[in-house]
């Protein structure tokens, strides 16, 4: 029984990690756009109204910024799932990121609403570079964990399957 729950956890984590990868990519794109905004002047000249473009970009960045909290919650959610499933190794692998999320959120700037990024400081080159690096690191982590979960899921499924087959065979044998 425990095996099947663990497999379910892995399956869920697999799907959620796919979503997290998507979030991370969006994060990277958003900050890259923020950084390279107006850096490609030819494009800028070709757009009729750069301001409209700008507003779009700001919206996209805002969406990315809004994705921060869901990302943290999703990650927290499947960490709890792994805890319930007693998958200690997986949990330990995820703990550093969990701790980082907690630290990141507690050390955020003073804000009345949920969020992580302060529009007044985000254009600071250090912070921008940090956020970009953070995005890349997370993407790498999620990608690795995606394959890890895939492996875990298939492994557990295989084990389950073999167990079931063996059980079945035993049943047959007992018959």
């Amino acid at each position, binding site marked *: 029984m425990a095996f099947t729950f663990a497999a379910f956890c892995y399956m869920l984590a697999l799907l959620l990690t796919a979503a997290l990868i998507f979030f991370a990519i969006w994060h990277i794109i958003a900050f890259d756009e923020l950084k390279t905004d107006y850096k490609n002047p030819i494009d800028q000249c070709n757009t009729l109204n750069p301001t409209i473009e*700008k507003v779009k970009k700001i919206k996209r960045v805002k969406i990315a910024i809004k994705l921060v909290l869901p990302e943290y919650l999703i990650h927290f959610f499947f960490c709890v799932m792994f805890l319930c499933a007693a998958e200690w190794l997986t949990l330990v692998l995820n703990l550093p990121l969990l701790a980082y999320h907690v630290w990141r959120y507690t050390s955020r700037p003073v804000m*009345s609403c949920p969020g992580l990024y302060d529009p007044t400081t985000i254009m600071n080159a250090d912070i921008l570079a940090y956020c970009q690096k953070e995005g890349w690191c997370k993407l790498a982590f999620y990608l690795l964990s995606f394959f890890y979960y895939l492996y875990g899921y298939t492994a557990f499924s295989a084990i389950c399957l073999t167990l079931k087959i063996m059980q079945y065979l035993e049943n047959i044998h007992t018959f």
Partner: protein
Amino acid sequence: MSTAGFNSQNGTGTGQTYTNGPSQNPVALQQPPGVGYGMNHQPAYNPMQTKVLGPPSPALYASGPYQPVPPGPQLGSYPPPPAQPLLTRPPIGVLPSHTPPQSASPGPGPRQAQATPPAQATPPPPAVTSTSYYTGPPAWQYAAPRGPAPNHVNPAAAAPPHMSHGSAQPPGPGAPPTSIHGYPQPGTAPPPMNPPPPHTYQPNRPAYGPPPTAPPAGPPGATGTPPPPKVDAQSWGAASSARPPTEPDTQEGDVECPGDVAGNGPQAPNSYNHVDNRMAGAAQPGPPGRHLGHYPSLPPGYQNTLAPPPSSLHPALQAATQPYIQGPQPYQQQPGGPGPDQLSPSMAAMSLQSGTPEALRVVNLLQERNLLPPAPVPAPTPCLTQDLQKLNCSPEVFRCTLTSIPQTQSLLNKAKLPLGLLLHPFKDLSLPVVTSSTIVRCRSCRTYINPFVSFLDQRRWKCNLCYRVNDVPEEFMYNPVSRSYGEPHKRPEVQNATIEFIAPSEYMLRPPQPAVYLFVLDVSHNAVETGYLSVFCQSLLDNINALPGDSRTKVGFITFDSTIHFYNLQEGLSQPQMLIVSDIEDIFLPTPDSLLVNLNECKELVQDLLKSLPNLFEKTMETQSALGSALQAAFKLLSPTGGRMSVFQTQLPNLGVGALQSREDPNQRASAKDVQHLSPATDFYKKLALDCSGQQVAVDLFLLSAQYCDLASLGCISRFSAGSVYYYPSYHHQHNPAQVERFQRDLKRYLTRKIGFEAVMRIRCTKGLSIHTFHGNFFVRSTDLLSLPNVNPDAGFAVQMSIEENLDDMQVVSFQAALLYTSSKGERRIRVHTMCLPVVSSLSDVFAGADVQAVTGLLACMAVDRSVTSSLSDARDAMTNAAIDSLSSYRQSALTIQQPGLLAPACLRLFPLYILALLKQKAFRTGTSTRLDERVFAMYQLKYQPLAFAMLMIHPALYRLDDLSDEGALNINERTIPQPRVLQLSVEKLSREGAFLMDAGLVMYLWIGRNCHQNFLSQVLGVSSYAAVPEKLCLLPELDTAESQRTRALVSWLRDQRPFFPSLHIIRDESQLKPHFMQNMIEDRTESALSYYEFLLHLQQQISK
């Protein structure tokens, strides 16, 4: 032929006399409303004017949840909020006759245009072909050899004999008063640069420190090693009083000594001669640093680190009694003098690199004391060819921390100096103005054409930022100045590094907004107690005709305590109507149309209101303050048009949104531990400021308060909306007359100064450089774009830069700041500043180009950021480390031969002093009782003030006043302004017989010694004896004596140089303010801080680790 219409502006034609072409910008400090500008190219404005004037129906406010109350004596009994059930109703639904505020408002232009902030909208240019973009290493036009011909140097070297007397030096970055009207164009007669003659300061000599007979610290000839710093020490004394030869800035170099500018180059072979003669001609008040410079007593541990006195080297020179002449001699004797083996290592090194520039002369800080030049430190001149330097931007507007840009980031990292720009872009200047239907810009990077582009031929120019080759448009071929065709390189755009364009309609996202001023006034009990209201109303009444604007100018007033009061000033009313809204949780505008009114049409009502306002709230007992709601209401009122909001606040807001708690613990003020609460307590003000910024509203905050007001939180409202912050601690109309005068003067300047609306500033730089961080008051909208809802001529900005790509193939790099704004007359204008700097590849050249003041200013900005994001002690450590790192890097990498002592290049000789001054500045000091608000305000000032004023706040200037003479005085507008020597900030320099003026930027102290000359007391202060000097004196009496006139001329000249009004306190030994005076003596030891010498020892310890 040419489509460029050159409007003949109302030129004040001081420098340039174009009859049909770019003409001078009016000084615009006090523009009379309604000056007709030729705006025929902007026909879109007119419909708006009629729209603005449309009067809304007066019936609008007949019904509604507000209560029209005519202001008058009966207002003192206005009902308290709970007694007004109507007022608490939500705004929507009870105002059926209302159209939504925005649509009913007289906002110009379509809605979507208002919502989008104006960017530098550009006309869609044709597609750029990639083949023509950045084609390889260019034939760079300015690759001229930088080393000057020897005969460049000689005239300058010969100059001192005839420059030895007469007027003193121009005050450097501080700008002579004329600079308000314009910085000198090349070709205008500059003030003569004359180092004061030696005897000028002779009377001062006894006061200057230890007598010349003070024993040298190091045992003479104790060691066998030749004394390396000999040359430096000998010449130093003279050099410290003379302007170093790197100084001739753009104002004067061209006329007086043409060789100077080029003579500083690292490759200048003859610069030493030039230096020497300058020094010989220049005066030195005291004995040279060799004698005076020694600290009288040294801790035993350091004695052996000091070099033996230089006199052991040249016995022949020891006989010389005239130390001033000694300076040049060692250099001249160098080639034929003692052999290389006898020379000190450093001198040998020097003679090898035959042309070490003055800026790199090694200075042993531990040995040399008189480092402070007698006049304000001028900006160093970049090492460029003379033609380029002539065109370069004024250092008052644009300054770089490193006037020689390192080639790579690793070289910059090695130098450990910050790279950045300090800007004062909207400074009051008189500029050439160009009106043209097309503004020539690079098609790829949108750089404005500037003096540093290169013309490949008649029809093509190459951008100096991205190196794209562009076509010269047909109309640019015509030169309106000379009225000739085919000389694009003679156009004013290519002749001036600072220029202003009248922008065509492509640069507008909406019709230019009118000037809109909204005043938000605190009228709680506390505010009425301070009595600021009458001062404000009187100031505004006096200056109401001088408010910058045109016929569309609008004004409005909001007052608030626990409720918000609006004033209906609609034309046709017999007197202003007060509308009270007590629903502060959900604020709304009672009559959106009639709260902001056209100033010209409703001037009488406005004046009526201003006259009655002070009396209106005389008896108020309301102590609460709903600032947040008042700001929200003001934002709603201004958001359709944008404009300026001036907020006057006297206490901590404690009601409704944005309420704050007192976070300051008075017992912790003096604690040496970390200072808490430097960051905002709530983001309400920041968010509101960002909303304001989006709607082109700037908020200026006037804080007049005796108690803690949490400026760290409140200040955000101005910081991110590009406003300014004024702080008057302990303001009271009776108890603090100095503050009242300051408030009055500041207000006058504030109301009448030039203003630019809906502005953006973009800073472009040559490919390879990139912008790291901005400092100042603004919102950063993009990596290189600042959103400035308002821009005012008193705002400074700082930009940290980084080098992303190596600048290998470049001789020069350029920076361009373009400020697009709407003038108060409704014109869209672009002000463009371009600066060009050389690129160097060796570390010593990087050090040679360091601008110590700019470095200090930028470090201060960075330290403010650090203390907010991290902690104050972190910021203090970072500043100390900045000094340690750069000096140790200089020692390790730039110095070829090691020698003992704390060595610094001459251009950085003041760096440790400035760092120490920063550590003792109000913003960063610890251990001294400092109110949190004052500390935060000092931090704001460091970031916001232009460099010249920020430097005064960091390192005040000390002058001796009791022996002022007209010798070396400036003559401005037939007024003689004495130029006393700047003294070191040490008690040692004070004497009981004298009177000393300390100019600390925002405040001046005149300290009267106990035994001050009777003459000074009676002739200047008008008192009979020292005891008769009043305890609180803030005004110099106007006596008809020469001494009094001189003193007052100096004080008022110092005041006129800055846009704010420093109050003067005349203090005696036992005055309450004496500790404030003494805290500024930064070279002295205090209970909690090191003295300058101890600080140097600390640096040396760290460096030698």
